[in-house]
Structures are given as C-alpha cells and as structure tokens.
C-alpha cells in the first residue's frame, strides 16, 4: 500500500519535471535553449502550464457521446497506474504481493487501449477515430514482442514476482544484474525497449497522436483537466515501462557498485533509501534514452510500423525465447 501512495505522488512530481526535461532535451538537441522565462532557467515553466491547463474550460463538443467521452481518460489513467501496484520500491517495500505480479502488470496495462479506443470513438471526430484505431492496432501488435521479451527474462529467472526478480540480482553490484549475468538478454532488452516505446505511444511510434497529421489523435477533442489526465497517463506509461525494464534487466533496486577487495562498496550503497534511489535513477536514465530517441528518429508510417512489429520484432523475439530456453537448459545442467 505504501509503495502505491509513494508512486502516486512520485508520478505527479515526475510528470512536472519530465515535461520540463523533455523540452530541455529537445531544445539542446536542436541548438536551442528551451524554456527560460519562468523561474531560474525556466524550471517552473511546467507548473505555469499546469495552472493554465487546470483553469481551462472542459469543452464538450455537441456531437460527442458524452458518457464514454467523460470517462475515457480515467480508464486510461487507471489502467496505467494500476500497473504500479506490483512494482517493488526497495528491499522492504515490495508492492502488491501477487505472485503473478508481472503477468498482472502486462495484463492490466494493456487495458489502456480500451480507454484510448473509447476516447477516440466517443469524440465522434474522424481524426480522433483515426488516432484511436492506429493506437489499438499498434498496442495490440507490440504487446506480442513485449510479452515475449519479458518471457525471456521469466524463463531465466523462473519467477513472475518482481520483488523476487530483484532479489535474484542482489549481491556484488553490476555483475549480478540479469543483463550482465545472462548476456543473451541484451537482444530481448532491445526488443523490450522498442516495443515499450510503441506501447507508450512515444515517437517514433506516436502515430496515435501525431500532432502534425492528426492534430492530436485520440485526444483531439479533449481540453483542460481531462487532457491533462491523458498526458499524465502517457508519462506514467513511460515511467512504468522504464521501471519494469530496470527491474527485469538492470538489477532493480540493487546498487551497481561491486565489492572491490577490502571495500564493501555494495553493502555501503544498499539499504531502503539507497534502494529507492538506485531504482528511480536507473528508470530516469532509461527515460532520458526514450527522450533522446524521440528527438532523433522521425515518425514511422503505418505500414512500416506494422511490418516492424510482425516481420522483425516478433520473429526475433520468438527466436530469442528459444535461445533463452537453451541458455536456461545449459545453466541447469
């Protein structure tokens, strides 16, 4: 329960600064300065934007299907945020004790596609519907490589419990991390990362939103607070997948520092506070990589998106599943 409350507040604060970080990253990559006016170096820009957004009118266009239209953003947010319930925070706070935690997480975050479809369809607007359709097609397609990449880890660790996955990587820093201990997991991690980008509707897979062609995709008709909820869910999804990636591949809350002869670095940098620190900083590093990718690659075409998922990622992840099975076989024998 405590982790859930922590993640709720952390998510809210994270979104404010992630939007700022996103804009700054974009600016630096494009030789600009980014927000500079509100607060020192523009650090309070998002807060100003947030205040503006909350004061905006909650516009309900005449032709929308009001009931589903109003409820859709909350379905999306609930689905994404429910995923946080099974994430451990450190050695002591393990989140929900569901033994099939990972399975629950994957199942529940795929529900957000229902919210997106409702939002697009209830808006009664061709751009919203296009966006929603693309989103559904995309999320369902990329769920498969994502699931298979996660399955590779599950085969090797032999558990669906995320806290247990973290515990298996404890001891002696970076050497014990899954991706170092089992190098076969490097390619599954790349698949996981690419599919994760697609799951959270981030560039280069932001076809559902694609502001330059579909205005805003499924949230075209939304304004004010409800639009803010969509934004919150998108960043929540980024954070969730980055944390999941951290736990599965990069040791979760374990310190990266190994014990060097005589100096117990690992023990010195372990503990509840250190654990939370390592988990969150690793996740934020992955988020930086997501932003970096966003400002590097242009958006894919719909057919390219589908062929990437079905022709390249899915066969590759099936192959990796087989290889990971063999690896596990070799480990046991």
């Amino acid at each position: 329960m405590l982790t859930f409350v922590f993640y709720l507040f952390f998510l809210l604060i994270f979104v404010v600064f992630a939007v700022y970080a996103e804009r700054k990253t974009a600016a630096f990559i494009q030789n600009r300065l980014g927000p500079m006016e509100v607060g020192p170096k523009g650090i309070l820009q998002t807060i100003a934007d947030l205040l503006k957004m909350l004061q905006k009118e909650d516009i309900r266009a005449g032709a929308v299907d009001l009931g589903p239209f109003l409820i859709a953003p909350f379905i999306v947010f609930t689905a994404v945020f429910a995923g946080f319930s099974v994430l451990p925070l450190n050695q002591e706070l393990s989140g929900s004790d569901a033994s099939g935690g990972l399975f629950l997480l994957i199942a529940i975050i795929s529900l957000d596609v229902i919210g997106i479809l409702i939002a697009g369809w209830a808006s009664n607007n061709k751009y919203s519907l296009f966006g929603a359709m693309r989103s559904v097609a995309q999320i369902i397609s990329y769920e498969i490589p994502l699931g298979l990449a996660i399955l590779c880890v599950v085969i090797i660790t032999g558990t669906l419990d995320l806290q247990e996955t973290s515990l298996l990587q404890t001891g002696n820093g970076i050497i014990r991390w899954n991706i170092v201990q089992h190098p076969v997991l490097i390619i599954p991690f790349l698949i996981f990362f690419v599919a994760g980008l697609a799951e959270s509707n981030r560039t280069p897979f932001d076809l559902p939103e694609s502001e330059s062609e579909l205005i805003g995709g499924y949230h075209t008709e939304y304004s004010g607070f409800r639009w803010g909820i969509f934004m919150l869910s998108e960043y929540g999804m980024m954070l969730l997948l980055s944390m999941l990636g951290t736990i599965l591949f990069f040791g979760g809350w374990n310190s990266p520092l190994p014990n060097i002869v005589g100096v117990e670095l690992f023990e010195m940098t372990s503990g509840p506070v250190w654990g939370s620190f390592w988990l969150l900083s690793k996740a934020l590093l992955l988020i930086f990589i997501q932003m970096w990718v966003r400002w590097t690659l242009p958006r894919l075409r719909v057919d390219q998106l589908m062929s990437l998922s079905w022709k390249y990622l899915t066969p590759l992840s099936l192959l990796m599943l087989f290889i990971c099975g063999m690896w596990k076989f070799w480990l046991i024998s």
Partner: protein
Amino acid sequence: MSYFGNISHAVRTTRKGLALTIRYFFSARKKRKKEWVGENNYFEKAEGTFTVQYPKEEIPVPDHGRYKLHNEIDDCIVCDKCAKICPVDCIEIEPVRAKEVFGKTSDGTSLRIHAAKFDIDMSKCCFCGLCTVVCPTECLTMTNEYDYSTHDILDHNFSFSKMTEKEIDEKKKEFEEYQSQKVVSAPPKSDAVKSVAKMPVIKKPGAKPVFKPRPIPKKK
C-alpha cells in the same frame, strides 16, 4: 533491400542518428558568441546554442547599417536637400528664413534658416540612405537603433524641430517686417537687369518625352 539488409541498415542508421543528436546535446553546454554575419568564419562557428534572448541580449549591428534616422537639429541648415532627394517623400520641412545669420553649425556653416518643422516619417522611409549622403553638414545620420516599433503608426513620425509655436510666429513676423522694410528701401532697378530680361529666349531642344506607362487593358 533484403530482409537482413533492412535490419543492418536500420541498426546502422539509428546508431548514427543517435550519435549525432547526443553530440548536439552535449555541445549545448556552449553558447554561440553574439556576432553578426559579417564576422570572420561566421559559418564555421555553428556549435552550441543558437538562441538570442532578444531584449536581454542583442546581436551587434554593423557600423554602416541603415536603421533609424536622426537629425542633429542644431547643425541643420535647413537646405531641404534631403527632402528633395528622398524617393518616398518621408521628410517634411517647413523653413522660416531669418533676417540675418543667427548662428554657426559645428562645422562652421552659417545658419540662415530656422527649421519650423523637420519631420521624418519612418513608416514611409525606405532606408536607402540618400538623405544622409546629400546632407552638406552631415547632421542627418542613420543610427544603429532598429527596435522602435509602436502601437500607433503616427508614432513613427519623428519630429526634430525644437521650436515652439510662439517662436515660429515670432520669427515669421520678424522676417515679414524685415522684408517689407527691404522693399521700401530697395534701390531702383538698374537698366542692365532690364536688358537681360529683354534678351531673346533661346529654346532648349526638347528633352526626350518622359516615360509614360502603357495603359493597362481592362480585363473582360
């Protein structure tokens, strides 16, 4: 392209693109110098952030740039040359003659005419700089001030005359009095002047007809 060719192409190009953008990300620690385009190697110094936060920082303008006009009215002899050469007629001058030399400009030219009105309408100005070229006392110059946009277009009409209405009326009256006295005390015109006037007028050969625009046929 083949299946595996696609994969290797995608991996190579993504790697290259990411390397490029991260280089830019880190070069954002540097800031470009605020230089104008005429500086040496201007185009080679493309590293670092580019933004000029305008009211706080400015790119220096070239010395010979043509921006807002300024007239140093104390040095102006009201010769009207600038108003005559102006292709867009943006300078309006109202001269009031003085009865005698009433001062000197800084370069020693005598002042004989008061400027009752010296208005430059910068909203009409085409920034050709011809007026500054013809100015005999170099009192009319182009400054490097370029940020003078206003909410009202009439505010672009800059007035340089320092004279008040009362002063203008005074000077006008003074000159009229002087003129009328002059007419009274004027000596009778000599014969020489009359003979000149009676000389046959030599007609100059007609100048080439001025260009007239062709009438544009009306569209039906």
